[in-house]
């Protein structure tokens, strides 16, 4: 194994850095927290029937959210990526908005909505409310996963189907089986995001497994039991991801380039009004209604609150954007290296274990990751990391490199091996092949991975609040620490500003990168 590693110095450096900076701290802290002073023996007895029934309840809720999100996401994905429905490019952008906003804010908006229009919040402050809010948040994720897979189906397959059977049968017998990997990926990712979500059930006062872990942390300060309980969540996530890995043939999700396949677009003429009604209906539920509430609350007493919110957030912009930008670069780099070697050297045990390490760290709840990093890095000799932004970058790289490697890995696997082989025969070095063939071909996917990593890093709160260096101002933390006691109008204004800043930056990146991607001739929308 040692010889194989020295054959890939870049991979070795990245792999060992990830192990050293992220995996060892987590393993060390979890190990000591669980096994010191016999706490494991004491706490394992507390994992009783109630704990497991609560976990089962959380799984059921997450199951419904994943199912509904994947169902609606597939319909939306089909309409936006496989039909010529009017305004489809605008819809593609607008429907992504819920992904950019903190789930907590949307929960607040929905509760206010129910109170204003129904004068009753009991319906929303329930399991149904949790399912509703989280479904609207995660459906866009399913939409881009399944939509991208649908757009990558070779048109010849569909046309062959039409020669012998109906449109309905083509969808059921050709399209859905072909995008099965994307459907499974969508279900698994949404399930994991939902079962780990804390803020929405906490706000609605619904007891789920994450709120129980929080209680152990914040009311009983029992880190050991909280970590043990989190371990159960981690096991479930790993089992699911393992099943996904075993069952899918590398879902082509979130690939931007068309890679030479023809995407067939269907005409919606017979059902145009019905389709548009559905799109507007979904847009209203997931974006328009919550935003009207936020907007009304922001400006109901004039613009003064909005100005105050802007002044409060102004000092955080440069820090937060710089940090998210650096984190996204690191995350994309780690993701690319992991994905590249996973695709081209998939037989090596070390390379397989890198995939698993990325996955396990991804599944660790935010607070646990934060505590782990504090306990490991808060040593006199490691002050340069603990007292600087390095600790946040390590946390963000640990959390999001898995997603980035998955996005980039799927793009790499769509590149025909013949291109690389032909260049190899010509005697072109591996670095030049990488630089001149692979990277240009997957540039859109790298860009997508960068944007998603940037959005997640800019909004990350759970781990960042545990480790951010004293005296620094970071946007989501500022919003979080102010919103709890501030008037609703100030909170809503801050949310609108955070959202606008995120959208502005992403648009900026898009326009900067667009000519570059277009130069390679395969950028689509």
């Amino acid at each position, binding site marked *: 194994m040692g010889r194989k590693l020295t054959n890939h110095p870049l991979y070795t450096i990245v792999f060992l850095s990830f192990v050293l900076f992220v995996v060892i701290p987590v393993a060390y802290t979890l190990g000591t927290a669980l096994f010191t002073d016999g706490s494991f023996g004491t706490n394992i007895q507390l994992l009783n029937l109630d704990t497991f029934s609560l976990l089962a309840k959380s799984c059921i809720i997450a199951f419904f959210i994943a199912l509904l999100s994947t169902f609606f996401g597939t319909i939306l994905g089909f309409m936006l990526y496989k039909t010529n429905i009017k305004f489809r490019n605008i819809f593609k952008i607008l429907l992504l908005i819920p992904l950019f906003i903190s789930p907590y804010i949307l929960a607040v908006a929905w509760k206010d909505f129910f*109170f204003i229009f129904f004068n009753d*919040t009991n319906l929303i402050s329930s399991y149904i409310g949790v399912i509703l809010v989280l479904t609207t948040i995660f459906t866009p994720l399913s939409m881009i996963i399944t939509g991208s897979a649908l757009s990558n189906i070779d048109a010849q397959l569909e046309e062959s189907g039409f020669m012998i059977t109906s449109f309905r049968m083509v969808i059921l017998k050709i399209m859905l089986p072909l995008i099965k990997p994307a459907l499974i990926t969508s279900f698994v990712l949404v399930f994991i995001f939902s079962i780990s979500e804390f803020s929405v059930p*906490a*706000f609605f*006062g619904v*007891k789920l497994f994450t709120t129980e872990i*929080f*209680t152990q*942390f*914040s*009311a*009983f*300060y029992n*880190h050991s039991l909280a970590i043990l309980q989190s371990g159960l969540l981690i096991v479930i996530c790993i089992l699911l991801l393992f099943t996904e890995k075993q069952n899918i043939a590398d879902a082509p999700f979130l690939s931007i380039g068309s890679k030479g396949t023809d995407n067939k677009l269907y005409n919606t003429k017979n059902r145009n009004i019905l389709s548009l009604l559905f799109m507007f209906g979904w847009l209203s539920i997931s974006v328009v209604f919550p935003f009207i509430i936020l907007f009304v609350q922001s400006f109901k007493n004039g613009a003064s609150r909005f100005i105050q919110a802007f002044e*409060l957030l102004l000092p955080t912009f440069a820090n937060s954007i*710089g*940090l998210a930008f*650096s984190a996204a*670069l*690191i995350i994309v780099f780690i993701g690319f290296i992991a994905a590249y070697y996973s695709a081209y050297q998939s037989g090596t045990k070390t390379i397989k274990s890198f995939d698993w390490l990325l996955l396990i760290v991804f599944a660790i709840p935010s*607070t646990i990751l934060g*505590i782990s990093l*504090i*306990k490991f890095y*808060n*040593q*006199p000799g490691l*002050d*340069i990391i*603990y*007292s*600087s*932004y*390095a600790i946040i*970058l390590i946390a963000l790289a640990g959390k999001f490199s898995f997603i980035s490697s998955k996005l980039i890995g799927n793009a790499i696997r769509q590149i025909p091996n013949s291109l690389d082989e032909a260049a190899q025969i010509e005697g072109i070095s591996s670095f030049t092949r990488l*630089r001149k063939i692979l990277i240009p071909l997957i540039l859109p996917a790298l860009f997508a991975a960068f944007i998603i990593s940037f959005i997640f890093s800019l909004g990350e709160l759970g781990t960042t*609040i*545990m480790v*951010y*260096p*004293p*005296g*620094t101002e970071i946007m989501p*933390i*500022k919003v*979080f*620490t*102010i919103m*709890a*006691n*501030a*008037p*609703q109008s100030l909170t809503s204004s801050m949310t609108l500003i955070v959202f606008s800043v995120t959208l502005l930056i992403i648009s900026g990146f898009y326009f900067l990168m667009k000519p570059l991607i277009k130069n390679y001739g395969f950028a689509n929308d």
Partner: protein
Amino acid sequence: MKNICLKITFLILLIMTGCSDNTNEVVVYTSFVEIFSEPFLKDFEKESGIAVKAVYDTEETKSTGVLNRLIAEKDNPQCDVFWSGDPVRTIVLKNKGITSVYQSPAANDIDPVFKDPEYHWTGFSARARVLIYNKTLLEQTDIPRSIFDLAKKQYKGKVAIANPLFGTTTFHIAALFTVLGDEKAKQFLSDLKNNDVVIATSNGDVKKRVIKGEVACGLTDTDDAFEALKEGADIGVVFLDQQEIGSLIMPNTVCLIKNSPHTVNGKKLIDYLLSIETEAELAKSCAQMPLHKGVKTPAGIPSLDDIIPMKIDYDKTSQKLEEIQNYLKEWAEN
């Protein structure tokens, strides 16, 4: 390409090490509302020339960030001063051996009841637990005057309290246990539950529910109540049990962290926070009641001289809190 890589690496390194300066400074962690605490820390910075590095959290979200961070940092503290919005969290830290002894000269005339007997923490600027009610939903004659009224049939389903596992509500309930005894306190909580009390996520949530009229009244803290009044909410504020057990008073608390890196500066910040001037400003900005004698307060801000306080020992109440937490968890969840 190489140049770009070098530039990016340099940029990342610059950002990574951008805040590792370690000069004349003091590090403070606070769970007191950022919007109110930040101006004081900035003023101290100006007056003393000592750079203040703060980590904020909020008690509305149970101070998970700072408190768990302080516990995790126990063996190599980074923080000098912890400023808490209540005594509960400071006492948790004291019991875990995280605080240090400091008897501030600035707090000499503060009543010893608001100080730790061993000077691990000192109280200043207090809040009280109050009842707020929606004026359109409750007539003047129907307003509850005692906490025990909340268990009466006429308020069935009309009262909200925050989750008693967290924050000032948990301390309020623990105080009731110490004053009434376990049996009476449990009976009261049981009656309250049978009366369909609404359990809100936080005091802020109680305030919002009362303002909106989702419930007729609810228990919260004076700062939340006065903030709502400042925003023009149509609510009234009542100090409960003024003829009987009194209202619970909860001071802010400040403590020095054991083995802190900037102990001298930490003590200077504590002295500043405990000064008469800080209390006067806190009264103005967020309706906190001064504990120093003779501090001038704006009109409308209650004075401790006008309130019958609940007679409790903060340390003993914190001990009681640890004893009843499992009971409270069960009460809140079932």
